[in-house]
């Protein structure tokens, strides 16, 4: 899928349609970021694909090199960051498993946080400093638990060989279950982030 150049005529090819970033970069569907290897891949490929190399050729070739370089840049930026890599993997898993994103849940308060949420609202309304402090501490606990959960999920992906399964296109049930668990943990993480932001804003306003 990442044949940048035609094997027969060695001409630069148009960018692939609908390729995922793992395949485009030529790395396995793993959650482990191998920083040095990734950078080496990226640099070697950039040296061949960058529009600097196709400026005098111009025309279609320059266009292809721009499109392929843009894709390569995006792949590297996404896959070298552990969290972005995880979120990206979730997105392509949901898509290829035909699962729709649980959008509605994102807006609702997660069950784990319902109590904290109402306590926060109340504390904000009353300007109760010590209550806000308690909420903050509780959120930190939930966040730590969630990080543990995410670490477990990373381990599970590798241990159960789900990356290889994805490449083969099997173990659909296990992968679906995994995707749902991962989605839940990542949504909780986003929600925690937003609540912390609100708390931070409230603190900034008071000061």
């Amino acid at each position, binding site marked *: 899928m990442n044949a940048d150049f035609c094997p027969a005529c060695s001409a630069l090819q148009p960018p692939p349609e609908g390729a995922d970033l793992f395949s485009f970069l030529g790395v396995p569907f793993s959650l482990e970021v191998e920083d040095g290897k990734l950078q080496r891949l990226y*640099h070697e490929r950039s040296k061949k694909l960058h529009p600097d190399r196709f*400026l*005098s050729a111009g025309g279609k070739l320059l266009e292809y090199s721009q499109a392929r370089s843009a894709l390569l840049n995006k792949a590297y930026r996404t896959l070298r960051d552990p969290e972005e890599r995880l979120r990206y993997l979730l997105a392509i898993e949901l898509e290829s498993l035909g699962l729709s994103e649980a959008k509605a849940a994102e807006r609702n308060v997660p069950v784990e946080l319902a109590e904290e949420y109402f306590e926060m609202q109340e504390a904000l309304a009353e300007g109760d400093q010590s209550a806000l402090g308690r909420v903050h501490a509780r959120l930190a606990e939930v966040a730590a638990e969630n990080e543990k959960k995410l670490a477990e999920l990373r381990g599970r992906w590798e241990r159960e060989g789900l990356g290889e399964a994805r490449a083969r296109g099997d173990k659909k049930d296990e992968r679906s279950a995994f995707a749902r668990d991962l989605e839940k943990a990542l949504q909780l993480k986003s929600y925690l982030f937003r609540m912390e932001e609100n708390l931070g804003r409230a603190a900034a306003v008071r000061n």
Partner: protein
Amino acid sequence: MAEVRPLQIDVSGIRKKAPAVGIDLGTTNSLVAVVKDDIPQVLPDEEGEKLVPSAVRFAEKGPVVGRAARRERVADPRHTLYSVKRFIGKGFDQVKDLRGNLPFEIEAGEPGQEMVYFRVEGRRYNPVEISALILSRIKEIGTKRLDLPVEDVVITVPAYFNDSQRQATKLAGQLAGLNVLRILNEPTAAALAYGLERKAQGNVAVYDLGGGTFDISILHLSEGVFEVRSTNGDTLLGGDDFDRVLAQKMGEEIKKQTGADPWADVSLRARLIDEAERVKIVLSSADEETFSLQDSSRNVRFTRRVQRAELEALLLPFVERTIEFCKAAIKDSGLSLGSIKDVVLVGGSTRIPLVRKKVAEYFGAKLRHEVDPDAAVALGAAIQADVLTTGREDVLLLDVIPLSLGIETMGGIVEKLIHRNTTIPASASQIFTTSVDGQANIAIHVLQGERELVKDCRSLARFDLKGIDPMPAGLPRVEVTFLVDANGILQVRAKELRTGKESSIQVKPSSGLTDEEVERMLEESYEYAEADVEERLLREVKVEAEQVIAATEKALKRTDVEIPADERKQIDAAVASLKASLSDGSDRHKIREGISALDGITHPLAERIVNVSIQQALGGKRLEDVEKKPLPGA
């Protein structure tokens, strides 16, 4: 818009031209450099000077650029423009605060137009035109030194320049008759000059404080790859501000003495700024210097000792601001402050001891100023020009977009599509649809900046997706792809996904100029060309005609290609006709027509020759033996 092309007819491979050069188009000074025998070097002017002051004086005989103009800055402030780079690609609102602090006048463009103008003797000039004049002078210096016409160039801009400022700079190059291969970020260029010379590896910061702009870039260097991780800066912060604050302080003291405000007098203001600059420079190496302004006609007799510490107190707020930008860049780079090994100092203002002290304090890293801070950017640009034209593969720059790109959504909010510090080229796609049944157009507004609201970002382009087939609301799916190219300039493309039809979109360039203005400027740029343009075009078309005739006659001599008798007759007639208009020799349009006619008639023959050549090549012969085709750029 009108398609803007360099004035030359492209006959690359036929006409001899100079190797591609790098140009540092600076706020205060400009330089040109070239790679010769693998070594980048600055090309000095006729008097051996490397720095060309970026000043233009409108003398009676016409515009004068460089030192001659800079000298008159004080004597003739109303006709002398300088620091024009601070205005390029900007709207009046963004720079109006500078008004009254400059010894020349600036004014707004038409309502809604993002452009600043200078008024000189009742005529308006825009920053693009003035920059084009400076570039023409640079081109002249390069052409004289290299003994061949300079055409292909890499021009540098501050990394923090937005799309409009880049577009405007590119346009200035085109107006000067240059083929702008690349708009390159100044700190990246400096890193290239520094990194190649020292074969540096690892994380490096480039702190670039020039006459008018400040940039900080954080790079990772690894085996010839220069990867920019983040950049930040301010396009209105530089040595000019240092001169201004010192000049203003001295002006206030003069006012106390004489009762008259020297700042209100254009001539005195110019002299105050000039003297402030001189004193500032001396204080980089001395502890004390005398500030002096004498003008008997205005009853000004002012002499005052200035201590370095006093100047530093005035500069401190500016220097501290640069450190804030450094902090932001480090944060965005994802690298730790401690991992930065070297800080490369670029720009004349990094000679100021206070600047060096504060930068060293913040980074805690080694300060590098081995490469001349005035020349580093031009040298790096020359290296990139060499990379782009000679096929050398030992170097690759991976730069970033300095400011986020987004589109306007409901309620005047900007939705970001490409975030700042994303490696370029970068692309993002977004799908748009209609909100009314049968709607044929969708209006899209592209903006650049970090703020949330449309009114706080720079408007880059407004365009319509046109010709959408009539469908119920929400049914059309138009995919718009935004591509930021290696120049940091936006390109937009749109496709209707249901029909696969490419939508016709017109993206207005964001240089702030109207179509009419660009056309007028192109026409007027003829006025300033060193040689008579008509003459040059005629010469070029004659060379091309001779080449075409020679190639045709060579082809006619071939024995391996069949040429039917009546085709042969037609070709002979076309050649004879072209030769006749050549020997007549004055009407370039007629010669051009002759070339086109001959091209058309020989087209079938050319195709047959290519076919034969391929067959011969497949038959074991080398293609080069069969037909020698000039390589582009060879």
